[in-house]
């Protein structure tokens, strides 16, 4: 009986913990993903979301992308420019700055080392 209660409680904890953890990981790597997509060429917001969807399984809450882009811009990692369109609704294109390219390189290398460490742990299991 106690064992059953423990298992149910533990399962309920996991149900809460795992989605939270996943959301934190996604949040943490979103800037890396955005910079990585932008390293391939300039993009406007909607295009950026589509590219992220195409290459990753991250289901991005689109509203969170714009605050992130503004933060990256304030940190001087990306720049933006408005480009007029024939429709009359301009697009805001984002591209990487020199600082953004350097930061992306550093972030990729950190991510790779982190990934290797976890892989090593998995191999030892």
């Amino acid at each position, binding site marked *: 009986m106690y064992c059953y209660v423990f298992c149910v409680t533990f399962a309920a904890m996991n149900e809460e913990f795992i989605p939270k953890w996943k959301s934190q990981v996604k949040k943490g790597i979103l800037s890396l993903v955005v910079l990585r997509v932008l390293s391939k060429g300039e993009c*406007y*917001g*909607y*295009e950026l979301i*589509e590219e992220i969807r195409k290459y990753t399984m991250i289901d991005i*809450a*689109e*509203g*969170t992308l*714009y*605050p992130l882009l*503004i*933060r990256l811009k*304030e940190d001087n990692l990306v720049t933006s420019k*408005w480009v007029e369109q024939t*429709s*009359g*609704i*301009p*697009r*805001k294109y984002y591209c990487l700055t020199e600082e953004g390219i350097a930061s992306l390189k550093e972030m990729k290398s950190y991510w790779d080392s982190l990934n290797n460490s976890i892989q090593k742990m998995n191999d030892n299991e």
Partner: protein
Amino acid sequence: MNRLSFESNITQRIYDDYMRRVEKNTSLLSAADCNELIMEINSHIHEGTIQSKDMNKDGVLLDILERLGPPEEFLKPLVARKKLNQAVTTFKPSHIFQALRLNLTNGFIYSIFGLLYLFLGSFLLLILAKIISPSHTGLFYTNGEFGGFGFVRETTGQVEVLGYWIIPISMAVAFILYVCITLILRLKTHK
């Protein structure tokens, strides 16, 4: 900014309502920041509707808006951040007050800044107290020893030494504190 127009009256109303909410939630920002954000969201909605192959534009718009989320939620951290930047750049008290109010839930540190500005406000209250009740407000000494500073209820046997000089002194202290606290807030914001 060119607003989008939809054939269906219902789609148009959904769009207009959403943009009104965006405008309402960005109204605290500077005109340039506000315009930039509205244009960007408008552009996002436009791209989403023209790139969708679905002919049901009501459904397409609802999908786009659902994925963006309620403006009250996704704009909140963004507006708070932009307002803080505006406040520490302009040094305007009204912007500082709004920025602190918006950022109170973004960390304990903003509550500390709120308390510091409240402390600063006490010097301004002191000026008011001196005008309303001059004999009970000031720097008091009793037999050559410090007896109290500020508003003192019982002044029997105490000598007030500053007189009306407390007004310019309080103003100067409040000003210096305001500049110092705002500079620290600026350092914290741009860290």
